[in-house]
């Protein structure tokens, strides 16, 4: 009897173990099968190309020739000796400096306005978001058409008794016009992010401040802004990266980054080097500069904006 029972329970135990084993194998098989292809894909299309870019950035290569001699940092030195490249870096910074605060301020203003009304919120939210889903190229041509010397905007200015402006034809105005068009296109996205952030602020803070007699400005300054800090940080990084990468606007709204290279951005410069003059080494070096800029920008923002807030 007892021997039988022992044998039986041993068998049951073994069965349990073998089920557990197959279950575990099955589980791992599942996990790694699901991940294998995507991981190979990311290695092949992201990791390897990055390493390749770094490698080409220290070589001289015109695409056609079979060898790519190592030239050290000559490509980088060449880039920074080039006035046009320095100009394109300056322009790119200008886009970031105008675009990021502009986009954040406009997005926050719209979000706060929307929070302060009770009707048609859904309607406003939907309308403001529309530009974000439309093609940059198409929208850029529409702006070009509106802003041409005898276009709609100048006609309106003349009617108001003001002077017509050169807009995209002027090296002083063109970069700002392009930055404004980028802000116009992303306000809806920014608004949405801020709305979500604002909804996360517990209402008791406002009520308490109200009881303590804090006015609207102080409530905004001492409750909304500090508690929105993580959202502002996130948005500044995302927006900064998108302004660092301006390209489609330049191709569509300007003649080759003109007038006088005033709208030539870093990415446009990379495009010209790589696909018009086939200087792959210099072009790759310029992409490394872009990479470093994006990285530095992100780290800087994390540092500056991520200061601890005392409540």
């Amino acid at each position, binding site marked *: 009897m007892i021997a039988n029972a022992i044998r039986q329970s041993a068998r049951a135990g073994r069965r349990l173990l073998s089920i557990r084993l197959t279950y575990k194998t099955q*589980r791992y098989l599942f996990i790694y099968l699901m991940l294998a292809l995507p991981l190979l894909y990311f290695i092949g*299309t992201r*990791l390897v190309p990055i390493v390749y870019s770094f490698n080409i950035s220290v070589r001289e290569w015109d695409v056609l020739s079979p060898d790519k001699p190592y030239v050290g940092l000559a490509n980088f030195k060449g880039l920074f000796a080039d006035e046009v490249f320095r100009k394109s870096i300056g322009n790119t910074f200008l886009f970031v400096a105008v675009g990021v605060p502009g986009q954040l301020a406009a997005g926050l203003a719209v979000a706060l306005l929307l929070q302060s009304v009770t009707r048609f919120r859904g309607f406003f939210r939907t309308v403001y978001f529309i*530009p974000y889903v*439309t093609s940059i190229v198409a929208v850029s041509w*529409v702006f070009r058409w509106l802003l041409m010397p005898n276009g709609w905007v100048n006609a309106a200015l003349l009617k108001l008794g003001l002077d017509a402006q050169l807009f995209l034809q002027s090296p002083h105005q063109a970069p700002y016009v392009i930055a404004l068009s980028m802000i116009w296109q992303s306000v809806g996205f920014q608004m949405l*992010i801020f709305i979500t952030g604002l909804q996360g602020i517990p209402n008791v803070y406002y009520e308490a401040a109200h009881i303590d007699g804090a006015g609207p400005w102080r409530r905004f300054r001492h409750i909304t802004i500090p508690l929105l800090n993580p959202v502002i940080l996130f948005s500044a990084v995302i927006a900064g*990266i998108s302004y660092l*990468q301006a390209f489609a606007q330049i191709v569509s709204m300007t003649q080759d980054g003109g007038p006088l290279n005033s709208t030539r951005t870093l990415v446009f410069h990379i*495009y010209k080097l790589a696909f018009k003059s086939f200087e792959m080494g210099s072009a790759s070096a310029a992409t490394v500069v872009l990479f470093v800029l994006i990285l530095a920008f992100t780290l800087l923002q994390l540092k500056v904006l991520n200061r601890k807030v005392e409540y």
Partner: protein
Amino acid sequence: MSRVATDQARRGSIGRGMSAAIRYALLLAGVWITLFPFVWMVTSSLKLPQHLFDPGLIPSPATLGNYADIFAKAPFGRWIANTAAVAAITTASVLVFDTAVGYVLAKFSFAGKKIIFLFIISTLMVPTEMLIIPWYLLASQLHLADTYAGLLLPGLITAFGIFLMKQFMESLPSELLDAARIDGLSEWRIFAHIAVPLVKPAIVTLAILSFISGWNQFIWPFIVLQTETKYTLPVGMVYFSSELKDNSGWIQIMAGATVSVIPLILVFLVFQKRILQGIALTGMK
């Protein structure tokens, strides 16, 4: 009720002195700034060339002739089909892979999970521009330059989508999945028949978002495609528009812009609730 109370209290957070009328006026001014370029684009595209500089909004007489012209002059029909196909194929692939990876990363613990997730997410930080040159060289070497395969290759799996799906999958109750395991369902069946149906709203969101970005993507198609009939709409628009400089050209450019913008605005309006939810979710977490 509490929603109303919240609104009341929040309202104090900006300009109590600002009356409701002023707030609505400001919001409406914003609506005008947002929509006017599109309105002007559409009405311009319906004008006769000789009325091009009429300041009036409503074209009289209105004509669809400009649309007939652009379809005759450039393969716009082909470009629309190409763009739709590229966006659809990209979306299908993204849905399959991003959902699978997001599920595994959200619901299993295994060696290397954290590193794999960090690796995938860090690729979001790399600018596309940095990858374009190696992609182009790779595509040329594999004889994929100027082909759809080459065009599609970089966008088949996205880090963004994996992140989005992981966020959603994490909310699935693990007890439910364990119960299915005890019932003897295989991992594949649990994924396909339990997890996927439960995150259907997230999958729809991801589908719409990747369709939109697939439709609008510019820099890679601009580099990899060389044959006119293979262009997508944004690429076609650049070449088409650059060649037209006279006044009737502007009308045709506006017709072309309308063709490339309106389908997406319609998709957005139909699915706007899902799209806005999806973006708010990934934007925040």
